C-alpha cells in the first residue's frame, strides 16, 4: 500500500514563533544573509560611527600621508591606509557612512515617493492632467543636472538638504515613468475594469493590484539607484557642488582619490568597494524579500535541498 514516507516540510503554522521562521528563511539564502549582516554593520556605522571614530577621522598627520594599506605598522586604524593628509581611511569610511546613507536614503525615498505619486496619477487619471505631468517629467529629464545643481547651490548653500533635493529631482522621472507604464498596462485588465464597475475605490485598486505588480521592479531600481546617487554625489563633490570638507561622504572620498589612482589606489578603492558591497547587499536582501513575500515563490526557501526548478 502506501509507503510510509511523509514529506518533512513543516508548514509555517507548525513553528513555535514567527520570528525564527523569518530568520530561518534568511539563513536558507546564504547570500542574502551575508547581505543582511553587512547592511546591519553599515547601519551601525551610520548611527554610531561619528561618535566612535569622529576624532580619528579628522586627525591629520603628514607623516602618514598616503600610507599604504594592509600593514599594521601605524596601528590598526591604518589597516586600510592613510589619505593624502595622513588621516585614517578606516575612520573616515566609518564616519562618512552617516552622511552617505542619509543622502542616499533620503534621495531615493523622496524620488520614489514623488515619482510614484505622480506616476500613478498620470497613468490612472489620464487626459490632459497626465499630459502635463508627463511633459514636466520630460522637462526634468532634459534639464542638465549640472546646471540644476549649480543653480540650486547658488541660490541656497551647499548643504545636505540641498544636495538631496538636487539629486532627488533628477531621479524622479525614472520612477514616475516606470509606475506609469505599469499602471497603463494593469488598468486595462479585466479584473480592474470589473472592480471599477463594482465601484471599488481607485486607492484600493492601486494598492491591491497595481503596487504588487510594480513593486519588484521599483525595488530593483531603487536599490541600484542608491549606488547611482552615491556616485552622483561624488561627481558633484568633485565639481565643488556637493558635500564639502569637513563633512565626509564616501562620494567625497572617491572624488578626492581620483588624482591618485595610480599612486595611491586605496584612496578611491575602499569607498568604492563600500558602495558596491552596499548595493549588492541591498539587492540580495531585496531579492530575498521578494521571494519571501510572494507565496508562489516562497517554496524555494522553505524546502532546502530540492532543485530550484
Amino acid at each position, binding site marked *: 500500500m502506501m509507503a510510509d514516507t511523509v514529506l518533512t516540510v513543516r508548514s509555517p503554522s507548525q513553528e513555535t514563533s514567527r520570528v525564527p521562521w523569518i530568520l530561518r528563511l534568511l539563513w536558507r539564502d546564504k547570500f542574502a544573509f551575508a547581505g543582511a549582516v553587512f547592511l546591519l554593520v553599515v547601519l551601525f556605522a551610520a548611527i554610531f560611527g561619528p561618535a566612535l571614530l569622529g576624532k580619528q577621522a579628522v586627525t591629520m598627520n603628514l607623516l602618514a600621508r598616503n600610507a599604504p594599506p594592509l600593514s599594521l605598522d601605524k596601528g590598526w586604524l591604518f589597516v586600510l591606509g592613510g589619505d593624502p593628509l595622513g588621516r585614517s581611511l578606516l575612520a573616515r569610511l566609518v564616519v562618512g557612512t552617516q552622511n552617505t546613507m542619509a543622502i542616499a536614503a533620503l534621495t531615493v525615498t523622496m524620488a520614489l515617493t514623488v515619482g510614484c505619486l505622480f506616476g500613478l496619477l498620470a497613468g490612472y487619471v489620464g487626459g490632459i492632467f497626465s499630459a502635463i505631468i508627463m511633459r514636466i517629467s520630460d*522637462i526634468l529629464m532634459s534639464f542638465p543636472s549640472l546646471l540644476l545643481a549649480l*543653480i540650486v547651490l547658488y*541660490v541656497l548653500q551647499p548643504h545636505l538638504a540641498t544636495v538631496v533635493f538636487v539629486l532627488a529631482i533628477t531621479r524622479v522621472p*525614472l520612477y514616475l515613468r516606470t509606475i506609469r507604464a505599469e499602471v497603463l*498596462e494593469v488598468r486595462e485588465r479585466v479584473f480592474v475594469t470589473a472592480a471599477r464597475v463594482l465601484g471599488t475605490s481607485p486607492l484600493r485598486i492601486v494598492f491591491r493590484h497595481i503596487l504588487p505588480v510594480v513593486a519588484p521592479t521599483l525595488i530593483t531600481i531603487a536599490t541600484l539607484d542608491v549606488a547611482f546617487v552615491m556616485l552622483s554625489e561624488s561627481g558633484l563633490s568633485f565639481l565643488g557642488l556637493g558635500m564639502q570638507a569637513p563633512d565626509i561622504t564616501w562620494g567625497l572620498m572617491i572624488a578626492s582619490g581620483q588624482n591618485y589612482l595610480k599612486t595611491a589606489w586605496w584612496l578611491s578603492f575602499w569607498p568604492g568597494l563600500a558602495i558596491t558591497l552596499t*548595493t549588492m547587499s541591498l539587492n540580495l536582501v531585496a531579492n530575498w524579500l521578494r521571494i519571501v513575500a510572494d507565496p508562489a515563490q516562497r517554496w524555494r526557501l522553505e524546502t532546502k535541498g530540492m532543485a530550484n526548478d
Partner: protein
Amino acid sequence: MLRYVGLRALNGLISIIGLVILVFFLARLTGDPTDLYMPIDAPIEAKQEFAANHGFNDPALVQFGRFATGLLHFDFGESLRQSRPALDLVLEAYPTTLILSAISMTLAIVVSIVVGALAAWRPNGVFDRVSSFISLAGASIPNFWVAIVGVLVFSVWLRWLPTSGTGTVWHWIIPITVLFIRPCGLIVQVVRGSMISALSAAYVKTAFAKGVKDRSIIFVHAIRNAMLPVITVAGDQAAGMINGAVIVEVVFGFPGIGKLMIDSISFRDFAVIQAGVLVTAIAIFALNILIDIAYAMLDPRIRRV
C-alpha cells in the same frame, strides 16, 4: 498613429519652449560671467565695457527679448568663449555623443536581455549568482575608475589599445566599454526581476507542467511580457547618455556634448547652454514618444494617452 505622433510632437514642442525659457532665466541666476572672460587683473572699466557690450547689465526681460528674436532665425547667439555661433558648436558636438550613446545602449540592451533572461531561468542558481555579482558590480562602480584603470591596463601596460582620442575603431573600444557597463548592469537586474515575475504567470506554469516540448517558445513569450519596465529603464539610461557622457568625453578627449555643456556651464556661456539644452530636449522628447509607442506595440491593451 500619425495623429498621435502629431499631437505629442505639438505638446512636446510647447514644453521644449517652456524649458528653454526656464533655462534662460534660471541660468542667469548664477551671475554675470564677465569676470570669467577678463584677465584677472583687468581694471574695472574694462569689465564694465565687456559687460555692456554683451548686454549683461540689461534687465533680464530685455535680454530675453533679444534672445527670442534671434531664436526665430535659429540664431542662438554667439558663444562667449569661441566667438562662433552657439548652435554650430552644439551641432558639431552632437554626432560624437549620439554615436557613443547609440552603440553603448544597443550593446547594453542586447547583452542585458540575454543575460537577465538566462539568469531568471534559474533564480539563485549559479549563473544567476555570477551574473548578478558582475552586473551589480558594474552598476555601482565609478565610471572614472574603469576609464583610468582601463587605460592603465590596456594602453600603458599591455599596449594593446591607444590611450585616447577618436581616430580609429580601436580608440572607441575602452570608451564604449566604460559607458556600457552601468546601464548593462542595471538593465540586467531589471530584466531578471521582470522575467521572474513573467515566468511565474499561470500560463507558464501550466505549459511547463503539461510538459510542453519546446520551452523556449514559452520563454520568448515571457520575455515579451517582461519588456515593459525594461524599455522604461533603458529609455531613462539612454536619456542620460544623450545628455552627454561627461567622464568618458573628458578623459578620452571625445568632443561630445557632455564636455561642451560642462564647460559652458562652468563658464556661464549662456548661448551654448541654451542651444545645447534645446537640442538635447528635442532628442529626449522624441525618444519618449518612441517609448510610448513601443508600450502600445508591446501590449495592445494599452490605450495611448
